[in-house]
């Protein structure tokens, strides 16, 4: 039943779902570039014993979907029956910038399904699963690849975040749509990849990208000289971002422009502090080479 953008008629095994008492669906990814080919190796780890049993007897199988909308690439790679490991290659010419990989649990035949780990609401209910149904998914893995216009082919950003920042335009915020769009320099992707690889800790992304943007937005909202676009949004409530943010800021009472940064920090649960703490912890316990600044085949 997990709902994100989709609704399922049966309990869904994913880290964002609450249909099971506990969920642990980890995909261990490694990738490299070889002769203009994007090579991926995956090892899937699933904690639930019933699902593991269904994989072992061939009722459920794993698949990996790779999609890159810039080049219209969308392909499913199927694991062999009972297997939790998969290696595949994609020609680099087919990928450009954002490439999303997701692991799915797929029903290989129709069967009746129940699981002792269902949450209380679904407990002891038997569901009819049809062949092809998606029964669960891992978190998305996002890679950002780029190519040279002259020769094509994908290669990874390998510059460090600080180097990348030196020659890029700063973040630009657009309020024009029914949302706030953060337009980031391409090299920011580099850093997003880095954070993604690094145990999914988003505090640095929040601290570096979102907090300044949110602070600027709050300052814009509370300043006395609103521009025409924002004034119109405020008066006519046409922008969801405006009304949502207004609601979130209500508990803080009156806000002055100079305290906008502090309020942004509070709304994001002080990401800068968390990032600093994580950074210290990581330095103490680090082993191996970080992605950025390493070789492309690490």
């Amino acid at each position, binding site marked *: 039943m997990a709902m994100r953008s989709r609704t399922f008629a049966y309990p869904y095994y994913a880290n964002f779902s609450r249909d099971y008492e506990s969920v642990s669906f980890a995909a261990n990814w490694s990738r490299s570039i070889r002769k203009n080919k994007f090579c991926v190796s995956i090892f899937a780890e699933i904690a639930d014993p019933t699902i593991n049993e269904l994989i072992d007897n061939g009722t459920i199988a794993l698949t990996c979907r790779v999609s890159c909308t810039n080049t219209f690439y969308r392909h499913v790679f199927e694991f062999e029956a009972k297997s939790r490991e998969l290696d595949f290659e994609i020609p680099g010419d087919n990928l450009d910038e954002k490439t999303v990989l997701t692991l799915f649990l797929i029903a290989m035949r129709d069967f009746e399904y129940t699981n002792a780990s269902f949450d209380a609401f679904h407990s002891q209910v038997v569901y009819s699963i049809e062949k092809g149904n998606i029964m669960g998914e891992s978190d998305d893995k996002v890679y950002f690849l780029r*190519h040279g216009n002259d020769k094509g082919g994908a290669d990874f950003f390998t510059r460090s975040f600080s180097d990348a920042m030196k020659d890029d335009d700063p973040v630009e915020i657009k309020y024009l749509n029914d949302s706030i769009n953060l337009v980031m320099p391409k090299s920011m992707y580099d850093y997003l990849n880095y954070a993604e690889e690094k145990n999914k800790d988003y505090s640095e992304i929040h601290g570096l990208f979102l907090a300044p943007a949110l602070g600027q937005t709050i300052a814009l909202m509370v300043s006395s000289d609103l521009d025409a676009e924002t004034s119109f949004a405020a008066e006519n409530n046409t922008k969801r971002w405006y009304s949502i943010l207004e609601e979130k800021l209500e508990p803080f009472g009156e806000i002055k422009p100079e305290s906008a940064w502090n309020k942004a920090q509070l709304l994001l649960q002080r990401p800068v502090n968390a990032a600093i703490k994580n950074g210290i912890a990581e330095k103490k316990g680090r082993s191996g080479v970080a992605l950025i600044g390493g070789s492309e085949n690490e």
Partner: protein
Amino acid sequence: MSNRPLHLIRQSAINNIKSNEALFWNELKRCQITPDEAFDFLGEEYWDESPFSFDFTFAMDGYKKPEKSDFENTVRLYKALKDVPKNVLFSETFLFSFLMDFGYAYLQWRWLPVYKDDPHRGLTHLLFMTNPRRAISVNTLGHLLFRAFMLVDENETGAKKYDLLKQAYKCGNCFTLDYYSYADNQKVYKSFVSFMVQAQQKGSPLTNMQTKKMCAHLSMLQGVSTLEALEESEIVSLLSDYWESLRADDQ
């Protein structure tokens, strides 16, 4: 004819055009720009040489309506550009440069009359005014190339390669699917088009509203199952089942 080199426009020139939409569009409208003049207009320093060269012309003669040339031009573009790496081909720079270098007259003929008083919408056919996926599906060259890559059958030879593409152009509504990201999978796209073509050949073509409902249904299906892993016939069968239920509701 022999191959002519393609000049690639620099990103800074594209940015200039985007900030001067009306000015650029008016210049195009007044037909004062030929490809050479375009270099001058945008500034010669904005063009770079590229490793690509082509022998290419768009089909324009003998068509009462410009849109009737779409199939022929799709085939020509596919033949000329199929070997260009996709991450280069579907870039804003390449598509715009190719159109200015090889398709200036085609642009004047095919799209200027449609959007003559709307520079912004007109430019959406030339440049990426929104996210790349959406932009390519409306780009003058991008949308034709996308259809070709999806529907040309490389396992066939000669004119047979382009059979499904030709039928799709006759069918019309097929291309509603272009705007859905799940259509990026060739198998899913081909299955949908095959279903639409079959329905037309059986004498019961889908209306616009029915086509939109079919696309929405396919969107729902791809959310709960991996359509890409099914056989083409299985996808067509899923569509046929839904089509039958739609028809039953309409009666």
